[in-house]
């Protein structure tokens, strides 16, 4: 019976060893260097070895290096070759063939296969293993990359919080970008596995092997597609030994108006394997509970985890200085910031600016996800600058409010940050935004997408300085209370300490 012998994880039962190798194999790096000169004997050994196991070009250098350092290996393989060419081998196979004629005598045999040298799927895995820490790990956070987005920021916050409870690592699974290293704590290694995982023909299985090798207590996936996939495919096995958590942010929207993205693709598959699922907004949590009719006794495992604001220190609301500086401004000034992608509706800003020529609009942003048509013919009262690096780059105290026009969203960290600063805000009432901005804390626009609705709200905001002050203060109080690091840590601790009871199937 065929056992699992030489059933490579990547190739399963496909026994053909000579498929293309996508990455250099590095497990030989641990081997010592050997003398440079090649004796005739050594050359003969090397040729015999290469001939025997038919190594690929990228492995050839590796095995030559190994043979220099370990000449006994050459003999080991030569002995095998000698056996294969021997009368004894022929005789043994012939005798077995007499009992079972399906075993044909030697001329029908291929040359031979010696793992791991002939397993092309192993090179990237060895590379991934070589990047892992030796020390035990309590928590692993799987992220797609390290960019500037809200989920990237959240993963940094999560790393800070988790590292206080045990050794934590972050693994980039999809791309190698690491744009904001300063967001992440120094004691949390950030390991880039994106390239080795991309080189293997079985990336999900490869990530599973990496996780198994690390053997952490808990695994978090924060927008890592491969992270979602590994839970989808191997959740029951992982859940048996590790606590599993996933963070969901708002769905994306297709051009035809239907939702797409991780909150659409994965919850139905992976919720049963999770110890807890986190949502950045209550509305997303409610949507998932309704969509999958999650039984009420499991609701406490679906947690709304509002993203903490970047600054937890209470500041004097910027609206105070805005009102104080208002007489020095000839024209009202409204700020806007975001990606110039379909979701954020910069096109609306252009139309709003045209409809309100007496107001200046200052925008910051660039296209990130999509190739947008170049922005042309901006009205004279609308300026567009590259993305800002820091809120200190913005005239937060020398303006009259913020405009937010997204067509769909969760609860963007920019709005949370501006809320904690006490900024008057006109905002599309989409996704989780109403959880922060309502009639008492700002100017929600329920008819989002309507230029008239935004201009109406902006006009109302600009016309009533006292309402600006009152609502911005209310907004700040709500944000500071709701989006604190303390609240985030408490919820996280609750999730980490949830009893698993008799069931090991997570949700």
């Amino acid at each position, binding site marked *: *019976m*065929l*056992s*699992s*012998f*030489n*059933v490579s*994880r990547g190739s*399963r*039962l496909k*026994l053909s060893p000579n498929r293309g190798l996508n990455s250099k194999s590095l*497990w030989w790096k641990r081997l010592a260097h050997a003398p440079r000169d090649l004796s005739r004997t050594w050359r003969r050994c090397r040729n015999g070895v290469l001939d025997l*196991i038919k190594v690929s070009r990228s492995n050839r250098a590796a095995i030559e290096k*190994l043979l220099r*350092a*370990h000449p*006994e*290996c050459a003999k*080991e*393989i030569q*002995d*095998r070759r000698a*056996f*294969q060419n021997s009368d*004894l*081998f022929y005789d*043994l*196979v012939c*005798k*077995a063939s007499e009992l*079972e004629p*399906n*075993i*044909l005598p030697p001329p*029908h*045999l*291929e*040359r*031979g*296969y*010696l*793992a*791991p*040298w002939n*397993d092309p*799927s*192993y090179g990237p*895995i*060895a590379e991934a*293993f070589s990047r892992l820490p030796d020390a035990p790990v309590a928590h692993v956070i799987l992220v797609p990359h390290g960019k500037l987005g809200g989920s990237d920021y959240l993963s940094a916050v999560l790393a800070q919080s988790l590292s206080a409870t045990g050794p934590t690592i972050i693994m980039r699974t999809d791309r190698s970008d690491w744009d904001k290293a300063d967001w992440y704590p120094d004691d949390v290694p950030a390991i880039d596995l994106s390239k080795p995982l991309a080189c293997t023909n079985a990336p999900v299985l*490869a990530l599973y*092997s990496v996780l*198994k090798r690390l*053997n952490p207590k808990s695994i978090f996936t924060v927008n890592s597609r491969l992270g979602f996939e590994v839970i989808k*495919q*191997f959740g*029951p*096995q992982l859940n*048996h*030994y590790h606590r599993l958590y996933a963070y969901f942010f708002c769905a994306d929207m297709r051009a035809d108006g239907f939702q797409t993205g991780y909150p659409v693709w994965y919850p139905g598959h992976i919720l049963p394997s999770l110890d807890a699922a986190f949502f950045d907004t209550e509305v997303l949590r409610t949507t998932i509970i309704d969509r999958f009719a999650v039984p009420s006794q499991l609701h406490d495992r679906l947690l709304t985890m509002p993203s903490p604001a970047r600054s937890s220190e209470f500041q004097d609301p910027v609206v105070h200085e805005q009102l104080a500086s208002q007489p020095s401004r000839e024209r009202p000034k409204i700020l806007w910031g975001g990606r110039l992608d379909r979701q954020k509706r910069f096109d609306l800003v252009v139309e709003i600016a045209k409809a309100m020529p007496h107001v200046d609009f200052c925008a910051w942003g660039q296209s990130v996800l999509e190739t947008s048509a170049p922005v042309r013919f901006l009205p004279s009262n609308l300026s567009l600058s590259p993305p800002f690096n820091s809120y200190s780059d913005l005239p937060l105290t020398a303006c009259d409010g913020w405009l937010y026009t997204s067509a769909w969203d969760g609860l963007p960290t920019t709005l949370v940050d501006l809320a904690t600063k006490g900024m008057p805000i006109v905002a599309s009432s989409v996704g989780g935004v109403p959880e922060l901005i309502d009639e008492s804390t700002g100017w929600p626009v329920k008819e989002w997408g309507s230029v008239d609705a935004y201009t109406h709200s902006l006009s109302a905001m600009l016309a009533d300085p006292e309402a600006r002050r009152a609502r911005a203060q209310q907004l700040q109080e709500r944000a500071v209370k709701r989006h604190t690091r303390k609240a985030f840590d408490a919820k996280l601790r609750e999730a980490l300490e949830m009893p698993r009871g008799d069931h090991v199937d997570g949700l």
Partner: protein
Amino acid sequence: MSMACDISIIITAHREKLLAATAVRSAVAAMAHAEEHQIQCEMIFVLDRADDLTRDTLAAANVPNARTIEVDLGDPGLARNMGLSEARAPYACFLDADDLWSENWLTEAHRFVAQRPDAILHPACNVFFNSSGLRKLRWHPDSESALCDPNYLEWGNYWTALAFAKTEILQSFPFRANDLSLGFGHEDWHWCKATLDAGIAHKPVPETIHFIRIRNGSQSDLVNATGGLTWPL
């Protein structure tokens, strides 16, 4: 069996039907070869939920002094463990009832184990075959060789379970049952990892061969069909 013996041969059978005959005959040939070298063997059939044809085929092979154990385990690893519990010899080895040994396997393994009684032994190579003309030659690595990367066991398996070792060692490292409902299988792979992790060397016995039949519906097929993975250590 009253006379002292050196090796307990444990043949696990399930539903190999007529194919079991070839396995048993190869074991008998290896036994005869061993006896020529004054090595005495006992044979233990472990029939795990075996069907009638498999049972009858083994009976018809008419192996003298063979013992048969009927079990209702439904697991190849547990069946091997059961065979081990019945082993009386200082050394034991396994054969699945559709695979074959080279004639010299028992003799050479017994000779080798005298030098390395602390190790688990495997043949130098496996010849995988089927009735459609497939032939694959796979060399077993030596876990103590620089050619062998132990980390590879996290990704693929090096050795089969058709091993030879001191009975005491094998009994100290029983096979873990597969749990396909949980998605854990490949009991042989897990066993190789567990034993190597415990510091037991896996050594190929030079100039020996196993012949491993590839067929649909094997336990390995079943494990793969359920997305089975090895148990973590």
